[in-house]
């Protein structure tokens, strides 16, 4: 009994003890979850993940994938072009994507939004507060 309630403690293994416990607990919950879905499936003949639940009825491919892509391009841009220029570009494009139209008014809104935010952030945080900007 005493052995069961004692964990082997060795300095170089400290980092593995707790993750093992969490992994075991995670494994048990996953098994229980799977078990429940199987039961549900047998009883109700209904799949766990229906495509309907995955995608909302009016899935907007363009806005979603464009903004997702843009998000991941932004840090790359910053590495190359620095914070100010890439943020201006990023915000103009993102605003346009989210508005979903390109006309004079949309352009104006996006340009204003982008320039104001960038300047304020760059000046207030970068210069006045001396935060290290990307």
């Amino acid at each position, binding site marked *: 009994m005493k052995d069961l309630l004692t964990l082997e*403690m*060795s*300095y*170089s293994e*400290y980092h593995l003890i707790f993750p093992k416990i969490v992994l075991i607990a995670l494994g048990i919950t996953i098994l229980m979850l799977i078990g429940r879905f199987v039961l549900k499936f047998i009883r109700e003949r209904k799949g766990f993940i229906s495509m309907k639940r995955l995608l909302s009825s009016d899935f907007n491919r363009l806005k979603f994938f464009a903004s997702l892509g843009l998000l991941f391009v932004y840090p790359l841009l910053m590495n190359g072009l620095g914070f100010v220029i890439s943020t201006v570009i990023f915000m103009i494009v993102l605003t346009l994507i989210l508005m979903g139209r390109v006309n004079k008014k949309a352009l*104006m*809104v996006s*340009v*204003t*939004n982008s*320039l*104001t*935010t960038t*300047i*304020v952030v760059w*000046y*207030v945080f970068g210069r*006045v507060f*001396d935060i*290290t900007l990307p």
Partner: protein
Amino acid sequence: MLLLSSALLKALKIGEEWCVMKKILVVVLISILALVLAACGSSTSGSENSGEIPDRVRVVIGSTSTGGDTFQNAEAASRYLEDEMSTNMKVDAIGGVQAFDELSKAKDDGSTVMFFHDMAYLGVEYGAFNEENKLENWEIGPVVSINPGNAFLTSGDAPYDTMAESAEWLSENPDETVTVAIQAGGVSEIIFDGYYLWAKEEFGTEVSDRIKVYVTGSQEDKNQALWDGNADIIHGSIGANAEFTKEEVEDKVKMKFLGLSASERVEGYDIPTFAEQGITVNGEEFTFDKEFFYLMPKDIEDSYVEQLDQSLEEVVSNESYQEDLSKNAYITNYISAEESTDYLLEKREEVNKIIEQAPDLDDISH
């Protein structure tokens, strides 16, 4: 500053003011023009003569704490250096691994430099940092200052008053053990190793086998370990622990110093050094000064190093800088960039002799 902040608030509220959009756009465009012009103006003056100091220098440090001795020493040095070098210096506490990472990616113009202490190479030797971060792969800058307050402490009512006495006490009381709280991979481990090796040499394994370690992280954790009774001796420093050693402190949290690792005593404190207590390793007095120095990218321009070196020499002789350091019991210790490389490599050599004989933490921890 108030004005700026309200501008920010306005920017947030922009959405409700559709009609003024155009006006704002014009204003913004004008200010952008002005800023671009201003930026061009300053940047051209900087880039014309190469070898100049960049406008902004980022000093990354090997600790994530802004309350620790690394930050305080880096901050004080930078505050004086930026005037001397006519630039802006910003100390960023990003931690050891990240700092090495940033330094390896940094440009060679000196816009990013690193400030750290002996753990920079101790960490490599103990395996806390990657092999590729060894001293040889960086340009070693000048050594700046020392924290002479590196110490070991115990609780106020412990039956021994110095590190040496603790080992004697162990040999007189064969049923007792002493557990020492340290942080792995750093300055506290090397000092512990020195103590351990001395105890083994002096009293044999029957004493050293009863010296255990409690490996933990921050100073708060070490203090707590002492109060919880999980450790009998903890690593600490004058700056962090002196307050707990004063007379009026409650017995429950009271501590006392057992010894300093530095080569000389600290003024104003009656704490014997390890050397005074007769602690030796391989027949030599055991001392360890925790020194702070700069590391720079390997291919940094010589003119930059030279300028940093000269400026630092000025700073170190500045009395008000010395005063700032002494507020927290730090002292200046300038070693020029030229000599520092050999100096630190030699120090590492010495340290390695200890590490080779040092006990495996696995064997002496609980």
